[in-house]
């Protein structure tokens, strides 16, 4: 707690629990430092050095910006991100509105369908688009002579990819509605459109801003879609890849990383501020809104959601079809030969590597992140340490995967760094992916812990029960649903992760997402699609398995939740 100004602070003698909490804080802090802060710091340092590691000030930046191409890439990145943001926010708002504020049929089904793109890597959507709109695509003529390879493809692909994220944010915003305000509007005989524009829209403005920022940052820093479908259209994310992988110019890669990092961090800080306001907007006494049937609106919205769902299914279905036909579009007979992966350095082992990675990220990350959130949330001393840990936990959301990956590469290859032994190992992929995905599960855990009575530990202390016993017998069981959610979030996202690991894999640890990129580069688009579909089915299976196990565990262990 804050101490009196001017008065010398009194402190309580530390007990066993204080020591334990301090160790946990140190442990989580060390992870954050090694996996996140130092790698990002390395990027900043490296951008000021030449290729021999000599400090050269801003020379790299000067030479980078002296040519026209970075400006072009930046313009392209901004243009693509802005257009995608507008499209996604409009589409996602209508979709989320239909799910939360109408009585249209099949709402449960549409809700699930909106999230389906989350299960697949962005590359899969890009391939689906190529097969529909590419040079040999069925609907090529729709683009009226424009090529899908370039901004159009990137925008379509990123729209599909960021749509679920925006829908999730807007569902949350639209669910937080106070029925009493709508009753008041009805009593005052406010018309439908006026109610929408004067009450509904203003109430979700923070949700809209938040969704826009998340979409913008994701597209701005995305690598997969631009790589596969971007053609010769340069964006900042692919520039980093080209500098590092193509030209082995790490300093220049670091410069582009900083150029990418700064707007992302800025946007993220903005998003956090907005998220705080959204949470405060609804009082504890609010009454949940139950939408009334409106036949016309309900039917229109049903049509709209059906259209969106069909589009998603068409793209994903086409990618699956692409992986199964012999030779698109000339020989359409079905085959499994694309699942053999006969390209050099690519094989089923990449798929197993992805499963292994996802398993370890989820299984190591869940306890780590939950413990970290527990340290942050529980009222003990070390205010400063807890605040810093929380801030560090929020940072990964703002750091593009490519930047974190490059930073980690530079950090562990720093001469004399004992962590260098991890280079090329599965461990470094796990650590890097975990750091990259840290923020969302951390927030989930903090939210869950906030809902637990904050006096449990105080009661424990009065009963002379160690904190660990209270944690094991009460906090952990009470937070079990959140813990299960964290595990599956980490697993699914680790499964499809690409940008964070593209600089860090070795021949032995190459992942399915990387392999799919390589297959695509080698011209085996059908095999790339096959690899990507494997990831989707694996994710889907694990998700369903998780659902079953969760139900079973929760039913057995959570009898107390049911009430009478």
């Amino acid at each position, binding site marked *: 707690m804050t*101490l*009196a100004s001017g008065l010398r602070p*009194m402190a309580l*003698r530390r*007990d066993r629990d204080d020591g334990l909490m301090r160790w946990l804080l140190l442990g989580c802090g060390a992870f954050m430092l090694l996996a996140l802060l130092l790698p990002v710091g390395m990027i900043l340092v490296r951008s000021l050095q030449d290729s021999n590691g000599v400090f050269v000030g801003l020379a790299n930046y000067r030479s980078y910006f002296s040519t026209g191409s970075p400006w072009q890439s930046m313009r392209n990145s901004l243009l693509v991100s802005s257009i995608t943001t507008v499209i996604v926010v409009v589409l996602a708002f209508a979709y989320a509105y239909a799910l939360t504020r109408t009585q249209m049929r099949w709402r449960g089904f549409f809700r699930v369908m909106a999230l389906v793109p989350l299960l697949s890597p962005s590359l899969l959507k890009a391939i689906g688009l190529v097969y529909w709109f590419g040079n040999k695509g069925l609907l090529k003529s729709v683009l009226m002579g424009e090529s899908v390879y370039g901004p159009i493809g990137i925008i379509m692909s990123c729209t599909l990819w960021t749509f679920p994220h925006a829908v999730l944010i807007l569902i949350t915003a639209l669910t937080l509605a106070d029925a009493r305000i709508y009753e008041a509007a009805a009593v005052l005989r406010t018309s439908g459109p006026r109610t929408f524009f004067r009450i509904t829209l203003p109430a979700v403005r923070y949700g809209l801003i938040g969704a826009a920022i998340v979409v913008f940052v994701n597209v701005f820093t995305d690598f997969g879609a631009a790589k596969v479908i971007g053609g010769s259209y340069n964006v900042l994310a692919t520039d980093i890849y080209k500098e590092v992988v193509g030209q082995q110019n790490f300093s220049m890669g670091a410069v582009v990383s900083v150029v990418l990092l700064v707007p992302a961090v800025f946007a993220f800080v903005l998003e956090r501020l907005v998220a705080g306001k959204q949470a405060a907007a609804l009082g504890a006494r609010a009454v949940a809104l139950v939408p009334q049937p409106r036949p016309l609106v309900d039917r229109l919205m049903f049509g709209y959601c059906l259209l969106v769902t069909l589009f998603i299914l068409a793209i994903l279905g086409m990618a699956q079809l692409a992986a199964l036909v012999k030779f698109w579009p000339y020989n359409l007979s079905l085959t499994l030969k694309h699942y053999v992966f006969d390209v050099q350095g690519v094989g089923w082992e990449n798929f197993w590597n992805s499963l292994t990675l996802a398993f370890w990220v989820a299984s190591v990350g869940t306890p780590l992140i939950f413990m970290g959130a527990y340290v942050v949330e529980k009222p003990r001393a070390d205010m400063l340490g807890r605040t810093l840990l929380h801030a560090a936990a929020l940072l990964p959301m703002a750091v593009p995967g490519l930047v974190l990956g490059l930073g980690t590469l530079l950090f562990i290859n720093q001469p004399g760094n004992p962590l260098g032994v991890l280079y090329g190992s599965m461990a470094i992929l796990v650590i890097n992916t975990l750091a990259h995905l840290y923020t969302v599960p951390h927030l989930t855990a903090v939210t869950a812990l906030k809902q637990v009575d904050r006096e449990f530990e105080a*009661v424990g202390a009065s*009963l002379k029960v160690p904190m660990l016993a209270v944690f094991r017998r009460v906090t952990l069981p*009470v937070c079990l649903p959140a813990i299960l959610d964290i595990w599956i979030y980490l697993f699914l996202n680790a499964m499809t992760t690409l940008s964070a690991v593209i600089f860090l894999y070795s021949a032995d640890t190459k992942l399915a997402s990387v392999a799919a990129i390589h297959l695509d580069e080698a011209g085996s688009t059908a095999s790339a699609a096959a690899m990507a579909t494997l990831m989707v089915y694996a994710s889907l299976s694990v998700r369903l398995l998780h659902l079953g196990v969760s139900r079973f565990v929760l039913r057995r262990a959570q009898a107390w939740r049911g009430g009478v």
Partner: protein
Amino acid sequence: MPINPAHTDQATRAQARAYLQISSLSKSFGRFKALDQVSFEIARGEFVCLLGPSGCGKTTLLRCIAGLEVQSAGRVIQNGHDISTLPPSGRDFGIVFQSYALFPNLTGTQNIAFGMQNQRPLPTGIDARVTELMQLVGLDGHGDKYPAQLSGGQQQRVALARALATSPGLLLLDEPLSALDAKVRVRLRQEIRSLQRRLGITTIMVTHDQEEAQAMADRIVVMNEGRVEQMGSPGDIYTRPASAFVADFIGVMNFVSGRVQGPTGVQCASMLLACAADAHPVGSAVRCGFRPEDVTRVAGPASDAGLLARLLSVEPLGPFVRLHCEVPALGVTPIRVDMRRSSFAEQPLEPGQALALHIDPAAVHLFPEGDRA
């Protein structure tokens, strides 16, 4: 009322004094002083209520006693030991929170046994002790239910039993009744009080409900803005409030302003109010406080003996009625007068009608004008 005043002689009282000593306890949050030099003592077996409006520092004080907050300065001494810097786990207390903080995933029995099961070496007869506690708080037959399956009052009892399970020397109650329905609250406050008497456990309860404090406490500590305004028995505090704040906070009090005329009267708007004013210098500005029940209606038409008033409105309050009267001679603030329902019914009045009042001079309390409630 003290626990058993008849049996307690002076010698044991002095010895029992100061089971808990709070001396010069201060706590600041930045510029804000939550506690300002709070000092008092509690005897063994006493039931003390910390009473005050929200934000007065009563909960902060309770948390400092438990070690859940660290005071900025000052000491807490329990049973002769200085516990000021001990962590909560090193102190000897049981606590019931406003939210009860029951472990939702454990049954009533498991909640109560929680503390004992973690003692090393494991105490014998945990089951017997739990059964005993369940009977003590009147929870027979509900032991296997989870907190969500229990009513508010039952949850409260489980929390109480859990706090008592390890036989602590001090019981801390943080607004334990405020989440309950009015009827349950009244019943439980009697139960808690008689349980506390039987066990003889020193107890501190935080409450903002002055009626609850008066009904339960041996002594009440009235707090305001981080300071102790008055400490005393419920009777003391009601009949001899030490400040205008206490007078206003406890029960209902009429206030009129005036200037001390002499040792037996205060000059109000246009009349001399008879009261004992010898403690205040002649000519000083004072506020006169008197309770509605100390004002009586003078029978018959307004006579010289009475104070002329006009009825503004009548507020029926169950066994009695409260008359809001305008008394021009005392100033513009309406005066509240309580009458038994039956005696009002004998001579009913309509708003607007005149009546005569009498204020008992012995019941008028004087406070210096600067001492605002």
